[in-house]
């Protein structure tokens, strides 16, 4: 399908790249269909991708693999809360953190460790989950986590 995106104009998205978030994400509960867009030319290492709504072209937020910014990311969640993802193997689950990048000062970028986006690649179902880890916060400064790496 041809979709309008926030930063990449119109893009051709294969049906298999459509992700279903039955509960949307927090603050955007009505947005059920999303996809992930990335700039292949820049390479995969440390790559920022875009979590793009397929229902509303203007909605896209930057995401990143936690392992691009920290060595250890071990979210603690109740297994039962992952039921909406269907059957999956732990090691196959895709995990992304939402980035907030202030346009005027990108060095102040923060990552949301407290509410990762989880996707089951087998059935393309996803959700955003609040994790129990006390030391994971909504706004981790990227400059700190990268320093500690």
């Amino acid at each position, binding site marked *: 399908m041809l979709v309008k995106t926030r930063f990449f104009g119109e893009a051709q998205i294969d049906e298999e790249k459509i992700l279903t978030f039955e509960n949307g994400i927090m603050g955007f509960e009505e947005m059920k269909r999303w996809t992930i867009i990335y700039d292949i030319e820049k390479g995969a290492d*440390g*790559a920022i991708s875009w979590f793009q709504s397929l229902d509303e072209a203007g909605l896209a937020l930057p995401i990143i693999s936690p392992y691009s*910014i920290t060595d250890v990311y071990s979210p603690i969640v109740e297994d*039962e*809360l992952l039921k909406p993802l269907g059957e999956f193997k732990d090691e196959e689950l895709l995990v992304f953190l939402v*980035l907030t990048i202030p*346009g005027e000062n*990108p060095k102040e970028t923060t990552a949301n460790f*407290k509410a990762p986006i989880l996707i089951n690649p087998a059935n393309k179902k996803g959700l955003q989950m609040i994790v129990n880890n006390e030391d994971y916060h909504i706004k981790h400064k990227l400059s700190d986590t990268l320093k500690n790496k």
Partner: protein
Amino acid sequence: MLALSRKAGESVMLGNDIELTILEVKGEQVKLGIRAPKDVAIYRKELFEQIQAANREAMESAIAGINNINELFGN
């Protein structure tokens, strides 16, 4: 919004498998006990609202041209 008056030790049922119990009332604070199936997520509303706000803020991230974390730091 439905408003029910309850005393300490009394409960309210939400559906047939969620029980909300008033454990203690002390001045302005009420201590709640919640018994619910494990697949029901329970959070303080403030936390939920903070994450909603963080997602909205992330949507404002204006980073045309930045596609890699190293670029954020001018590398």
